[in-house]
């Protein structure tokens, strides 16, 4: 943990508890992020990526979700201990979030401009007219003409809606942006536009960003650091180049092998065999061991610790 760490997540553990079962969604996740940097959280569907982001903003639906342990420091303040009122002041203002599905993330009965202006009014304590003006500027910033302020979400296309979501997230100039699969629901061409736009905005505002995705291309495009998540645990963490060029964990290696390549002419992609483990009954030792080609007796016996494999590059593997 270096001095200029801005966001620091320590041992975050989240469970979803229902009458019938307990899902261990996040198991002791530790993350660090410096000011102005971008971290990619990569993993399969259900690995716990979204849960981490929602735990940081404290918007998990509880019940069923329950934060069992850990600390989340933002600029030295433990968010999990903050009273709800102060947390409200954090959300949308210092921490904001971009949602995965632009189709459902906007309130269908409120015009898009007001959905942006309401964040501004809430945090900047300005008049309605000033908030409107700022919201119009935010719309322009993401490439939507200000005249469309009074239109409703159903009048926008998916990509336009995502722009609105991004505009709302950035309206108050947050210090930390959590982007939850910002491009997954979009067409490839729109994805590129969106990434380009996020790049520009990032450069403009120097916001620390966490991008959640399962798309390695997005990570390569956007991130400085990468954390690979498997079954609620970080299995590999490091700078973009280290992880991409010297993947240490068998799961990361598997992920890369499953991506179609332009340069090598392979007849078949190599999928990772097996299924992700049942999150209600996780293995004791390495969570990946049942699917791992290198598994031996030690792997399943006891929890595996993070191990340094290079400068700033850690990996949760006994190998």
């Amino acid at each position, binding site marked *: 943990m270096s001095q200029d760490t801005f966001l620091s997540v320590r041992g975050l553990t989240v469970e979803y508890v229902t009458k019938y079962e307990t899902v261990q969604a996040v198991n002791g996740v530790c993350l660090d992020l410096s000011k102005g940097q971008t971290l990619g959280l990569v993993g399969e569907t259900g690995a716990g990526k979204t849960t981490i982001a*929602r735990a940081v*903003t404290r*918007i998990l*639906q509880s019940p069923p979700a329950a934060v069992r342990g850990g600390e989340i420091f933002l600029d030295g303040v433990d968010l999990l201990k903050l009273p709800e*009122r102060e947390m*409200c*002041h*954090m*959300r*949308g*203002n210092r921490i*904001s*979030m971009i*949602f*995965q*599905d632009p189709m*459902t*993330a*906007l*309130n*269908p*009965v*409120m*015009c898009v401009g007001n959905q942006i202006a*309401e*964040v501004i009014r*809430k*945090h900047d304590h300005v008049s309605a007219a000033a908030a409107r003006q700022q919201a119009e500027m935010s719309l322009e910033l993401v490439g939507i003409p200000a005249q469309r302020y009074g239109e*409703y979400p*159903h009048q926008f296309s998916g990509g336009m809606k995502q722009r609105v*979501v991004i505009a*709302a997230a950035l309206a108050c100039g947050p210090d930390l942006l959590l982007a939850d699969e910002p491009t997954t629901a979009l067409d490839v061409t729109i994805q590129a536009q969106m990434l380009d736009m996020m790049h520009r905005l990032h450069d403009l505002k120097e916001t620390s960003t966490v991008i959640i995705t399962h798309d390695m291309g997005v990570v390569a495009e956007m991130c400085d650091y990468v954390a690979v998540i498997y079954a609620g645990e970080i299995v590999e963490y490091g700078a973009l180049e280290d992880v991409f060029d010297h993947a240490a964990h068998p799961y990361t290696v598997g992920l890369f092998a499953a991506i179609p390549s332009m340069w090598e002419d392979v007849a078949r992609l190599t999928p990772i065999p097996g299924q992700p483990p049942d999150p209600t009954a996780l293995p004791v030792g390495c969570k990946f061991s049942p699917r791992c080609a290198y598994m031996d007796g030690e792997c399943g016996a006891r929890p595996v610790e993070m191990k340094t494999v290079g400068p700033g590059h850690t990996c949760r593997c006994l190998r």
Partner: protein
Amino acid sequence: MIRYVFRRLALMIPIIIGVTVLVFTIIWFTPGDAAEVLAGNAPREQVEELRRLMGLDRPYIVQLGDYLYNVFIRHDFGKALVNKTSISADIVMRFPKSLIFAVFGILISVFAGIPLGVYAALHQNKTGDSLATAFSLLFVSTPGFWLALMLVLLFAYRLGWLPPYGMGGVEYWIMPVLANCFHGVAIITRQTRSSMLEVIRSDFVVMARSKGLSEGEVIVRHALPNALIPIIAVAGMNFGGMLGGGLIIEKVFSIPGIGNYLVTAVGQRDFTAVMGGVIITSLFFSLVMLAADLGMAFVDPRVKEQYSTARRRK
């Protein structure tokens, strides 16, 4: 939007004519008629004579045509067969009472039902929710007239707090309105709870929270407006139900409203009076449903848009 309202109003004309024909036809098949009631135990010939005088012996199509002509061209519901009073005047005198009754009923239902439903949804599976759910289920299952009579038994006969029936000051209205609105409160509570539960799980509510809005702002500004659409529909239906369905309760409390009028008319086989009452009630019911539709369009821009595109297509 205004053109839409006019279009809907115009569409109501065939509907009301349809209602008239339908009810007229149903009544045509009803055994017995006013002549028999009036003549009492008089011999057959006398009944036939009376029937001829009242025009009840003419063929179906002639009577129907005559009736339609009178109602829709001359705007006259005619005279009651038994009491010989003007039906229009009767209705003008009685309808406001039923209307007051229904308006109070729906106001209480909405203003009690929506907060209760919201509370229940926000405290899902906790004690408050279980209580609200249990009570609304109980009152949905309680026959209104029985509840009315039980109220009479308790508050009028046992405690002597309120008059058992009749008309007069505020105290005469308390029990009828209560008996009438319990069902409505229960229905609106249930609808509010279920549509709120659906809405508060949606992404845009989570997003509203992530914007830093307080829980109250999230509910009032984002969740409730979206949950409101089915609630408005149910409230509209319910208002119509109270308008026509208060009739047993009007009977219990001897309120001289349209329901009581209809029940008496049916008993006397005075079908002209029945027709008049049913047509006016249906007309108001259609107006209320139109108001509900407009309310939905007001809340939801998507509904509004449907209307304007529908208009464009025509």
